[in-house]
């Protein structure tokens, strides 16, 4: 009996201490981690796809509720008019989720640009989706309501050689972004008006 109690007490104390320590550390690092994510992943991708913006899209961001999930939206101003939104979406790649930033012009519902953010694809094969700007630039100018597919599946997007799964994932992510955009369009239009004041 004594032994049993010691076991329970030791395990409980250890687990409580560990949980407390970790939640403290999580709170302490949360702000820094978000800054790092914006700086290293989302920031460069957004800047690359929104060439020639007159504002700082990282600063002009807002969060919006899409059902249960909260989505971050970045705003791009061209010629001092906020008409572009950047959404992030995900597709299932070869080595895990692939994050894709899609910039959409709200006036004519076309894609301004796209860029891969987080991924864990094979270097030299799937990772080219991020490294080779030629691949994602295929989405430029396409209407957002389209369902994107690689040429093998009867679509318009030329897949990366040796990385069909990655290419399909990027297409799925772009299609998903289109879905989010269409669902949220009324809210997004409202929000953009604030930036145009």
């Amino acid at each position, binding site marked *: 009996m004594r*032994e049993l109690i*010691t*076991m329970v007490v*030791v*395990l409980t104390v*250890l*687990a409580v201490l*560990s949980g407390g*320590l*970790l939640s403290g*550390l*999580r709170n302490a*690092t949360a702000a*820094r*981690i978000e800054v*790092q*994510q914006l*700086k*290293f*992943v989302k920031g460069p991708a957004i800047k690359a796809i929104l060439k020639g913006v007159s504002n700082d899209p990282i600063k002009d961001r807002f969060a919006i509720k899409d059902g249960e999930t909260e989505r971050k939206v970045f705003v791009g101003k061209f010629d001092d008019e906020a008409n572009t939104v950047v959404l992030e979406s995900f597709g299932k790649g070869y080595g*895990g989720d692939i994050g894709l930033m899609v910039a959409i012009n709200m006036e004519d519902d076309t894609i301004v640009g796209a860029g891969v953010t*987080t991924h*864990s694809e*094979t*270097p*030299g*094969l799937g990772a080219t989706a991020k490294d080779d700007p030629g691949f994602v630039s295929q989405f430029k100018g396409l209407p957002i309501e389209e369902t994107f597919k690689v040429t093998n599946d009867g679509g318009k997007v030329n897949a990366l050689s040796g990385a069909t799964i990655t290419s399909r994932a990027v297409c799925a992510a772009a299609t998903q972004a289109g879905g989010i955009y269409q669902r949220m369009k009324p809210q997004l239009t409202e929000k953009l008006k604030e930036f145009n004041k």
Partner: protein
Amino acid sequence: MSLTQILAEKTVFVQALNREIKMAKTLTQEFTKGLWEEIAPFRLVLGLCPVLGVTTTMENGIGMGLATTFVLVFSNILVASLRNIIPSKVRIACFIIIIATFVVITELLMQAFAYTLFLKLGVFIPLIVVNCIVLGRAEAFASKNSLTLSIADGLGIGIGFTLSLAALGSLRELFGANNLTIWTTPTSVIGVQEVFGPHFQPFTFMVQAPGAFVCLGLMLCLMNLLGSK
């Protein structure tokens, strides 16, 4: 002072000195055994998941090795200092709690301070929890030895693991991508690009999973050759 007293004092002194020399010897022994005799991936063929998974570049290997070393040293410290408190029937559960705590600490710190590396290592950082080297050292060494010896053991095994990952990573990166990166800072890359010149066609096979097996197999073969003499 009589002669016997002087002699007695001398023997006590010599004994104490011998004990200290022996302590220092075992301390260095425990440290160096991880670097060569018991170098985990090559001699004991342990911890192969990260060895095969992350060593696509030298930098990834070093980063993963250092993260594992951090976890290993701190879990050894805690296990060694709590070894008389932890009941033996639930020791594995206690070790896992301790190890998992340090793994999450590593993950959070890496996200906050070395985000680029975190992106590359991805899922392999949480997987340190189930790395058999870490649990193995806690169970086989730290739970039976003193704090100082456990620290030496953790450091030695950890550095040996880092060296193995770096060696495998550098080979694979060199032939598979024609580069050699040691560390990436936000502004610059420390390392050599295009080691064999711009016309070298890299064997992309080497940075894929089969390349990892072939490369590890060749290195194991080399280690056995060296060891057999």
